[in-house]
């Protein structure tokens, strides 16, 4: 009795409740996708052959893991953070040797009993721990560029390996750590530059290149005219403005086409283009042209189109539980994993989606509140890492299903089917809860 009290003492029950609700919603969503009216769902559930029964088993395993984590001491994570990170990176490297090819990315390690482990999922936790450990070191002064570079390398090393494994979506998630670093004092300029770069790419795709160049030039001239008093006194402003203008025009005229035609593969470019409602001509793509002499085929956005149809057909109140024809007809590919949100949108409509998003929003804001009440830098950095990772996953996944963002293949945390994903998010969240429970004891 006293043991149980000790575990639950100081643990944030709100987060646990939110976690439990979301996992339950996830299983429900998978059930909606897998359900067939002619089969007895009870027997197929107990048979354990369907995804929802497997996810249910995973949830059980996660409950065990969560209990296990809550039983440990929070010092364990600080102590082993670097070791975990090294282990994680080694595991990711091991995939090059042991890797199994699933859906075109060689990022899985086959385990016993037909289960597969995706190290890049687990490595997110280790990276978060390692970053927290590095930033909380006594010697680290994050205002120094050197520390910032080291932190950047810690975050992006798994991303680079991930890209080499053709798992671009996951690599994107590692950029979420910049949000954490921003909280810890990274200059906002980095974020602004990153954001501007994305905005510039988007506008390059949306607006005619010549028109965009003119717009940028006019903006620069207007800015210079407005600040003519200042830059007469301080020439650096003039210089900087001209530099930015040059960089912007250079990027939109040369860098963006270069990236799409020479760096990205045809299908990736086409996905980005289709997210902006444009067609990408694969004939321009040097990389796919090099690979095969066949005329590069224009890949269509079937997945996203079907997903949009599913969500759009939901209307305000939805078509009702198990009544969605898009979901029942399996029109949306990968609907138990990447496009799980589509089944939710179809069945419960705008009202359901709003409630669902509010739930996630609540979770994220709760986690931020937890982060801010930490006394140790380690716990705070780790908490922000959890928030950022979750946020990136949610934002990218839902934007993808809604056709706002090219589909990179990112799961919806706690909802999507998949053991690796569910277990890693469980560990991620429950380590935070363990750290949070001990916030009074740990001073550093």
């Amino acid at each position, binding site marked *: 009795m006293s043991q149980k009290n000790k575990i639950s003492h100081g643990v944030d029950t709100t987060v646990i409740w939110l976690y439990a609700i979301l996992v339950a919603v996830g299983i429900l969503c998978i059930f909606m996708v897998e359900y*067939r*009216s*002619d089969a007895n769902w009870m027997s197929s559930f107990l048979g354990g052959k369907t995804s929802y029964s497997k996810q249910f088993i995973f949830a059980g395993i996660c409950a065990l893991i969560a209990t296990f984590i809550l039983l440990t001491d929070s010092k364990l994570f600080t102590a082993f953070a670097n070791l975990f990170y090294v282990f994680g990176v080694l595991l990711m490297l091991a995939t090059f040797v042991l890797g199994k090819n699933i859906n075109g990315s060689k990022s899985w390690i086959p385990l016993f009993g037909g289960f597969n482990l995706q190290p890049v999922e687990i490595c997110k936790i280790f990276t978060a721990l390692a970053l927290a450990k590095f930033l909380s070191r006594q010697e680290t002064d994050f205002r120094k560029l050197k520390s910032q570079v080291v932190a950047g390398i810690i975050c992006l090393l798994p991303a680079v390996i991930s890209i080499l494994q053709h798992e671009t979506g996951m690599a994107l998630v590692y950029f979420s750590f910049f*949000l954490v670093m*921003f*909280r*810890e*004092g990274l200059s*906002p300029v980095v974020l602004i530059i990153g954001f501007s770069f994305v905005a510039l790419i988007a506008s390059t795709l949306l607006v005619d290149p010549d028109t965009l160049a003119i717009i940028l030039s006019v903006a620069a001239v207007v800015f210079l005219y407005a600040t003519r008093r200042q830059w007469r006194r301080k020439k650096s402003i003039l210089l900087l403005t001209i530099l930015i203008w040059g960089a912007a025009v250079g990027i939109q005229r040369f860098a963006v086409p270069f990236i799409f035609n020479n760096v990205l593969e045809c299908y990736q470019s086409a996905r980005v283009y289709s997210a902006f409602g444009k067609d990408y001509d694969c004939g321009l793509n040097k990389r796919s042209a090099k690979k095969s002499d066949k005329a590069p085929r224009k890949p269509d956005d079937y997945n996203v189109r*079907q997903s*949009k*149809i*599913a*969500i*759009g*057909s*939901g*209307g*305000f109140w939805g078509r009702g539980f198990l009544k969605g*024809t*898009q979901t*029942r*007809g*399996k*029109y949306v590919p990968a609907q138990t994993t990447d496009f799980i949100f589509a089944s939710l*949108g*179809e069945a419960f*409509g*705008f009202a359901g*989606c*709003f409630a669902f*998003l509010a739930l996630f*929003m609540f979770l*994220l*804001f709760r986690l*931020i509140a937890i*982060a*801010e009440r*930490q*006394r140790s*830098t380690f716990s*705070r950095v780790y908490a*922000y890492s959890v*928030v950022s990772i979750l*946020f990136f996953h949610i*934002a990218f996944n*839902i*934007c993808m299903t*809604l*056709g*706002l963002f090219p589909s990179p293949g990112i799961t919806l945390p706690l909802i999507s089917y998949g053991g690796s994903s569910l277990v890693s998010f469980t560990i991620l969240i429950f380590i935070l809860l363990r750290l949070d429970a001990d916030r009074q004891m740990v001073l550093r």
Partner: protein
Amino acid sequence: MSVFNQSRSRVIQIILAAVFVIILLQLVNLQIFSSQYKMAAENNAIFRKIIYPDRGIIFDRKKKPLLENAISFDLVVTPSEARNTDTAALCAILNIDTAEYKKRMRDAIFKNTSVKPSVFEPLLSPETYAKLYENMYKFPGYMLNQRSVRSYPYNTAGQLLGYIAEVDTSFLRKHRSEGYEMGDYAGMSGLERTYESVLMGQRGIKRFVRDNKSRIQGPYENGLFDTVAIAGRNLYTSIDVEVQQLAEKLLQNKIGSAVAINPRTGGIIAMASSPSYNPNVLTGNARRKNWGRMIMDTAKPMYNRAIKGQYPPGSTFKPLGALVALDQGLITPSWGIGCGGGYAACGSVYVRCEHKNPGHAANLRLALANSCNSYFSDIFRKVIDNPKMASRADGYLKWKAYMNAFGLGRRLEVDLPSEDKANIPDTSKYNRIYGARRWNSCTILTLGIGQDQMTATPVQMANLMCIIANKGFYFPPHFVDSIEQETTADTSLLGKYREKHIVTNISDSAYKAVNDGMHDVTIYGTASAIKIPGVEYCAKTGTAQNPHGKNHSLFVAFAPKDNPRIAIAVVVENGGYGSVAAGPIAGFMMEKYLNDTISTAGLARVEELSNRNLIPSAIKQWYYRKDSLRAAKLRLEEEEERLERLERERREKEIEKGNNTEAQLEPGSKPVGEKDTTRKLLPKQAILPATDPKKKNLKNRA
């Protein structure tokens, strides 16, 4: 340290909130303001299955079904589920080889994907069906699908009933507003076509939910939007199936037509056109085999001569000629002429008469009985040169108006598609031939005896008999008396057949004179050899001159003399005298209809008549040539097959030999192998030129 940079927590919160707002805006856009997605989802997922109703049945006047809906079965395969099929057993039952099996499987997958069922073998024969049914357990992934086809228990009336076939694109274009879809069956000719809207019934639609591979998942909304199929309604016709069968039998080995109408109602009792066909050869899987052959047949078995054949009516026209003259008051029944074997009043145009004895045309009755050409030529001239008329052309136009009133030279609107109106020439036609005002009653004299430019279809001739039998009225000839559960739309469809048409105001005495004359025809006149046991009847024979060959034999009649119940017209092309070929056919048909049976003596005559071959020699030759061609082709194919078999055997032997030598030789010695192949090819080339020219010749001749 922890408070350091705390304001940035706000910034992060704002970023989070902003992204969520963007997501919500897109959700609002997709779910609330875009309506096209709902429709797109329905187009994706809802599968409309058409439930075909049973077509209506067509009954004869005694409620015997002329056609029925038989159930046929298609063998249907879902390729993805047919992995463990006993292919050999299936091939043995269907009588195909494995290559054909693979080809059909490939086609099925190509046309319809491997997860959807496609027809593997349509319209199985009953034997094949029975064999398959017993062995279905060996063929997973295969199904026997029910399908409704027409069958004709009496093997008769093919041209009248018509046939149904799958609609094609041109049909769909023509009948766009009628809701046909690809894959539907529709009546293409005959009654099936005319009464399509009645017979087809109303299709039902069931909605199903289907998945991304078009597999059915279950009913949509539990069948809330489904409509039920309504069966087609039955047609009750005036056809007497036994008379129809008899007519077809009697017209066998002849080219011609017979039409029998009930004069009281206008209901057609029988309508035969020869050569005809057994309607069962155009249903089910037999259709594919026979259709092409029938279309190519030079004697046109699909062509309904009863409504499309145009024949000069010849002497059968004479009763009408008499009625016209009587009605105009130009003659009286007792008026007569002296005929000495021909009509010479026109000088250049001399009309010969079969009779020379004086007094054979002393009055109308005698003239009709003896079919005196002179008499009717004369009264025709009287009509054209009618002194009451302003001009000859007016006289002619008046005569033409009589013809049209009696149903000649215009469509009778029989309830079959593509009826012909035959021809009563207009004055413009004669103006064109002779020049305006340069023709007179003499130039067109033979119109008076049913020759010249005038033609009539057998149904028009039969209808004319109805008018004479009824003494001045008729109902338009038709088949369908009533429709099951008649609606107002049907009533308007049938209304025109229930309307009594009164033809001019010819007096009863005029009709009586004509009827008496026609009765005499059967007593001592041209038809005296043809008797119906226990029935007095009226008739008129006709022998129409035919510029292309032997005279056409015609016969019109109605029976009994008083209160007639059947009016009939028979034409036998190239049959000679009317009383020889056409007469007996009409006689037996009337006997069958009136007495319900044929006397034993008559039955032998029926057999004899039906075996009598009157098909013109040109057509006989065509058949002969086609048959011998087919035989030659068959022989050629056999010969080719034999050669091929020999060739194959030789090749196999050579390959065996080649293998042996190769085994002995060094592996690098390729030239030997190459030589081998050229040698193998040679004999085939040597054979081909020998057979090719022959083949070409045959094709040219064909």
